């Protein structure tokens, strides 16, 4: 005798619950956490390298780095001034999930930290589906990737709180239609706060750093 049982449960509900737990833990320690997501090569680590020295006088920042196998990114973050840089090797998985962040948080003395930057694994499909429990999600797009990315990866553009457009110094050399790109973004995420910048020239970084500081202030 076959019987149908209605379930109606979000498939990633277990992850979501643990993400909430991560968030409570961060809140209890008054740590502002940001999840940085992007495709490989968009400049996640470069942005962290440029951001940390600009925050050094004001905030104590910890970095959690998700990488499939290496510790190159965590090493770069430590060199740039992170007070602690935790490497999470995902063992082949293409995103961080709430369990991995939970374990990483266990390695950080949260009371000594004001802010946590989480560098997700380079990927435009999965990270958006797996909430971590951070306060803000930031997507880093970059000019060489092309202007069609919002149309190809709507889930990613949909769920973020801020958008960085990196490598704007390359605009003169690449056929990147900014209004086509921004129209796609605007459809999916109206009013999304956007930071066009270049990690090579430093242009636009001040606005990005200002946004972080404002958010930390608001949280404190």
């Amino acid at each position, binding site marked *: *005798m*076959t*019987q*149908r*049982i*209605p*379930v*109606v*449960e*979000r*498939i*990633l*509900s*277990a*992850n979501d619950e643990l993400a909430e737990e991560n968030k409570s833990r961060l809140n209890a320690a008054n740590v502002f956490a940001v999840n940085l997501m992007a495709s490989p090569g968009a400049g996640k680590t470069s942005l962290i390298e440029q951001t940390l020295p600009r925050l050094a006088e004001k905030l104590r920042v910890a970095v959690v780095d998700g990488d499939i196998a290496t510790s190159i990114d965590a090493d770069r973050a430590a060199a740039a001034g992170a007070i602690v840089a935790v490497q999470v090797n995902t063992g*082949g*998985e*293409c*995103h961080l*999930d709430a369990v991995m962040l939970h374990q990483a948080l266990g390695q950080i003395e949260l009371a000594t930290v004001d802010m946590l930057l989480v560098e997700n694994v380079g*990927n435009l*499909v*999965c990270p958006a*589906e*797996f909430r971590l429990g951070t306060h803000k999600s930031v997507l880093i797009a970059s000019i060489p990737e092309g202007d*069609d990315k*919002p*149309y190809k*990866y*709507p*889930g990613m553009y*949909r769920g973020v709180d801020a958008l960085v457009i990196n490598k704007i110094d390359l605009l003169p050399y690449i056929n990147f239609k900014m209004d086509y790109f921004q*129209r*796609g973004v*605007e*459809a*999916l995420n*109206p009013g999304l706060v956007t930071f066009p910048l270049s990690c090579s020239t430093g242009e636009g970084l001040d606005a990005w750093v200002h946004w972080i500081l404002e958010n930390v202030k608001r949280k404190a």
Partner: protein
Amino acid sequence: MPSMHELPVTQSILEIALKHAEKADAKRITDLHIVMGELSKLVDESIQFYWDMIAKDTIAEGANLHFRIVPAEFQCMACFEKYKPDSKEFSCPNCGAVGVKIVAGEEFSLEAIDVE
């Protein structure tokens, strides 16, 4: 080759199904009904691939996976026209505005299981 992110997703599906089957004192799970929005971008073939590996030696071994794909639907926030987004253009075909409410296409849940 399936990408890796469907592995934890498939494990999650199995855990939810087993939990509900146990609650119902079921001996076996024969079918799973999964709802997936077009915008969720999770590929069903990969889930099937992992399913055959991880459901082995559980009461869900050999169960059939059924996917109901929900097409994306946008509603323009300027003129309130409902439309299906083109894969290369998201602006409203009626008035050209951008800024939409996503009415459908983001679902991702286990709807029901069939058990014996």
